[in-house]
C-alpha cells in the first residue's frame, strides 16, 4: 500500500502563517480522524497509510524521515509571490540559500533526501495565501475561506492512489 505524508508547516501562533495547521485539521476531519487544539500535529491514519505532521519549520534531519514515504504533500502559506490564492505545484529538487537564517524550503529538503536516501517521494506543494500575520491562532477571514479549497485539492490527491 502506498505510504503518504501530509506535511504542513508554519507558525500557528502567527495567524495566517499557520494556515497549514487548519488545512491539515480539515483533511483529517474529512478522513474521520480526531483533531485537537494541540499546535503540533503528529498522527497516523493506519487504515489509509497516511501520516499527518505539522511543524513550525523544515529542518535537515526530516530528510531522513521522508525515506519511508512514497508520496509527500507539503502544505504551506504564501504571501502573494504566486498569483493563485491556493497554489499547487510539484516540488522539484533544488537548493535555496538563506544567508542569515535557518530557513529551509521543501525543494532543499527534497534535495537532501535525494542525496542521503538516493530516492525521493512523489511530491505536491499546496500553498495557501496568507493575508494577516499578527499574534493570533485565528486565521484572517480571507484566508479562512481558502481552507475548503486547499482541503479539496489534498483529498483529490490522496484519492489518486
Amino acid at each position, binding site marked *: 500500500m502506498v505510504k503518504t505524508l501530509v506535511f504542513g508547516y508554519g507558525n500557528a501562533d502567527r495567524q495566517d502563517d499557520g494556515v497549514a495547521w487548519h488545512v491539515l485539521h480539515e483533511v483529517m476531519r474529512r478522513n474521520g480522524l480526531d483533531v485537537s487544539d494541540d499546535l503540533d500535529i503528529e498522527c497516523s491514519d493506519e487504515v489509509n497509510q497516511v501520516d499527518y505532521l505539522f511543524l513550525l519549520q523544515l529542518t535537515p534531519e526530516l530528510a531522513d524521515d521522508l525515506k519511508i514515504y512514497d508520496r509527500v504533500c507539503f502544505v504551506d502559506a504564501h504571501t502573494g509571490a504566486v498569483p493563485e490564492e491556493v497554489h499547487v505545484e510539484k516540488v522539484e529538487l533544488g537548493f*535555496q540559500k538563506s*544567508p542569515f537564517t535557518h530557513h529551509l524550503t521543501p525543494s*532543499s529538503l527534497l534535495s537532501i533526501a535525494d542525496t542521503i536516501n538516493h530516492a525521493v517521494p512523489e511530491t505536491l506543494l499546496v500553498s495557501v495565501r496568507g493575508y494577516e500575520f499578527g499574534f493570533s491562532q485565528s486565521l484572517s477571514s480571507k484566508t479562512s475561506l481558502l481552507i475548503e479549497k486547499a482541503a479539496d485539492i489534498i483529498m483529490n490527491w490522496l484519492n489518486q492512489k
Partner: protein
Amino acid sequence: MVAEKITIEPVTRIEGHAKVTIRMKDDGTVDHAYFHVNEFRGFEKFCEGRMVFEMPLITPRICGICPVSHHLASAKAGDEILGAPPPRPASLLRELMHMGQTIQSHGMHFFELAGPDLILGFDADPAVRNVVGLLQADPELTVKAVNLRKWGQEIIRILGGRRIHPNFAIPGGVNKALTKDERDAILAGYEEALETTKTALKIMYGWAEANAEDINKFAVFPSGYFGLVKPGNTLELYNGDIRLIGSDGKELEKFDPRNYLDYIAEHVESWSYLKFPYYKKMGYPQGVYRVGPLGRCNTSEKIATPLADAELKKFKQFNGGKPVENTLHFHTARLIETLYAIENVKVLLDDADIMSNDILNTCRDPKPYGVGVIEAPRGTLIHHYWMNENQQIEKVNLIVATGHNNWAMSEAVDSVAKTYIQGPDVTEGMLNRVEAAIRAHDPCLSCSTHAIGQMPIILEIRDSSDELVKTITRD
C-alpha cells in the same frame, strides 16, 4: 566617483527582517557597514495575561530551532516566581534536554550553515556552496552530520514527547521521568556523535591552518565576553553565575543572573530596531560584549569533561591565553561546546539520580517576579516575568542571544566590509563573506518564518543622494 550605499536585504515574511547596508566613500572604499534587525518584542506582549505555568509551552513557539532554550529558561523563571526549586533529578533531566538542544543546534550550524563556506570555500559557486553541495562533496561525513543533529533531536523527543516543541519542564521540575529503555536508546548514539564531532574539529583546525590569513583579518576586534560559569570558572550551559570579562581577559563581574538589570543596560541606535546591550558600569560602547560559543569559551577557564577541556586548552593558545577575538573562531568554540554537550550527555546518563521519580517540587512560595537564565546555543537567554496575585503574567522581558550579540554582528559586518570590499563591483564571494560575518554568530532572525518561492538577497547600490543606481538580486 559618487558615494554609494549597498544594501543586502533578505526578504522574509514576519519577524526575520534583517539587512546590511554598506555606505561607500567617493574613493570606492567602505565608509561604514550596518547590520539592521527588527526586534522581536511582539511576543512579549502576546504573553501578557497568560498563566505562569503556561509560559514554558508558549515561549518555545518563538523559535523552531532553539525552542528548548526558551522552554527551559521559561521553566526556570517559573521555578523562581512560584518559589519551587526543582529536585536534583529534574534539574539533571532538564540539563540533558538542553544538551540535546545544544548538539542539534550547533551540529546544524557547523555542517549546514558554516560548513559550506569552510569546506567548499567562501568563493565557491553559490550553486554548490550549500548543504546539498556539501553532501555531494562528502556524502559520508554529511550523513553523519545529519545523524548528529538527529541524535540531539531524539534526546529532546524522548524527554519532551515531541520533536520540536517539548512538553516537559514545568515550574518546580519536569513532568516525566526517564526510563531505562529511554536512557539506553540515547546512549546508543553516543559514540557516533562523539566521532562525528571529533571529525568536525579536525576539519575546523585544518581549515584554520590553511586559511590563517582569513582567520586573522576577518572581523578580529576586542570586546568584553559574557556567559554562565560554574565554580572555578568552568563552562556552564544550564545553571550558574554570569561571568563578564574585559577585552584583556580580566574579570569585570561575576553575578547571580537574577540581578542582570544591575549590570546590563541597552543602548538604542537610530538605524536598528534591535537594542544594544552593554555593561552598565563601562557605558556604551566601551561596555559591549560578545555572547555565544566565543563568549563562553573566553569567559570559561576550563570544561568539566576531558575531551572538551583539552580542546579548550588549545583554543586558549590561539591568542596566547588572552581572549580569542577572531570572529571565525566562533566555529571552533561551537564545536568545542558540541563535544562538551555530547560528553555531558554520558555524564548525566551515568548519574545515579537520572532515572529517579523525584522530579517535581509541588511546594509553592510565590514571588511577584522571577528570572530564568540559560545559555542558549547562540548565547545567554534571559526570561524575566512579573506576575499578579492571580498568577497571571503582567509583564515579560526577554533578552535573547541575538540581542546581546547585536553590536558584535554590526562590528563584524563593518570590519569584513572594510577588509574585503573595494569599490562598487562587489563580487559574490565578497558578499558571501559579509553574510558569513553574521552567520558566524548563528543569529536566530527568522526561525518562525518560511515562504514559498524565493528568498533572495537584494543588493541595492545607491548614490550619495540615496537614488537607486542598480539592484542586484541573488537567489
